[in-house]
């Protein structure tokens, strides 16, 4: 089963949003789905607008990383 996340961002430019999300994922040991960015909704590229990003394939990445951290103790 593939799940998806709906992320509601603050009204700032998209490049800041992604830079922050990448940094947090790095800090927290969560793999950021770089390869899945092609599915990132073009709607979030609208500057200075609140919008929604759909990271459809995000969950499998999160799940695999989290499972790894659980099993690795």
């Amino acid at each position, binding site marked *: 089963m593939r799940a998806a996340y709906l992320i509601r961002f603050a009204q700032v430019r998209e490049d800041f949003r*992604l830079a922050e999300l990448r940094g947090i994922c790095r800090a927290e040991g969560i793999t950021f789905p770089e390869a899945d960015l092609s599915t990132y909704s073009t*709607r979030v590229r609208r500057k200075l607008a609140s919008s*929604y990003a759909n990271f459809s394939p995000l969950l499998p990445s999160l799940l695999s990383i989290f499972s790894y951290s659980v099993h690795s103790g």
Partner: protein
Amino acid sequence: MHLEEGDAAIRKILKRAILILQVDELLARGNSFEDLVQAAQDISPHWYTPYERSAFRFDVDDYMAKVPGSQQVTLINRFSFMPLKGPVSMASPDVCFCIHLDATDASIDGTRAYLGRVIGEGERGALMGRFNLKRRPYLGTTSMDAELSLVMANVAAIRPGSLVYDPFVGTGSLLCTAAAFGGLVLGSDIDGRQMRGTVGVDNRKGIVTYGTSVADEGTLVDEEKGVIRERGKNCTDPGPESLERPNRSLVGNLRTYGLDGHLLDALVFDIRQHPWRADALPSMRSMQFDTILTDPPYGVRAGAKKIGTRNPYPISSSAGLTAEEKALRYPKTVAYEMEELAEDLHKFAAHFLRPGGRLVYWYPAEFIAEGTKVDGESKKRSLMEAEVRAILPIVSELKLLSLSRQPCRLFDRWLLVYEKQ
């Protein structure tokens, strides 16, 4: 199947995210509300199993199209087919569903609609409130605001135990937020007055504040008596008395947030002539920073300085001075241009960052002339991303991960994120 592991990872992100308001598990989507209702009917019955008896709530999030409260109830009731048998709880639901209506492109193809299970909301409000500059005891002319300081700390991927260094520390705004995410912080500045704080009147409290200034070096203000008290000549340390109370200094700022235990030190030196020696002793070979996080002065409200003189062959300025005068003498400084500063910063980072460590800083980019002149002045425009990339210093050990533009009135500034290879 339900994926609590995914929820846990998302909550980790939400706990420190500044630019994320909310994250939902996406259940259904449609190009109109009717499409959404249709799509929601296709959700597998198994999905509801964990929530069948849970207290629940529905929210409606409308963007660019106001939905009145009465109409929101009508919209929510369209999802009555969902097999939710638990009670409705507006105050403390076990699970919350949200209908998102995005009418940004309503004129093109109608309102897009999404149905999600709310995993959580970001901590943006709490974090920004905690580090609000209005509540900070000590500010400088260029103190970084709370939102951007927090975003920088996130972009820099600071985690508990990260060794974070700010070579243009000023009043320590970036150290505060870096410490909040668990960083062990260290700062330096060519101007020690910024870090030590100033002697003056706190207008908000109407009292004389404490700390030392260059002019009154060797003195300490007695807060209760409101007078300057002698502490002995050449005393640059406010002394243990001032450390026992919150003060207007870099240390005082960290203490305000209960983060002074994260401060390793604040040092006074010119970054061009820094004392760090990674290979001076075998035991110091591991002296590397996890993060270099800084906001160098751009020359608008505060200009960068380096030790130097305009005269290439200066006559010895110490000639004729007594030993006491020499001891009190401060080295001369000259302007430190941004291009040179950036190049030095990159070289420093290449040498003193650990592999995988990050250099995060703001780079100002002036507007460039373009097109015809209007009233004798050329029209100006911002630099494009490719143009900024072309003027940035290139150091082979550092890889540029991202650059994000913040438009300002007189210039743009770009948040640069580099990673040591």
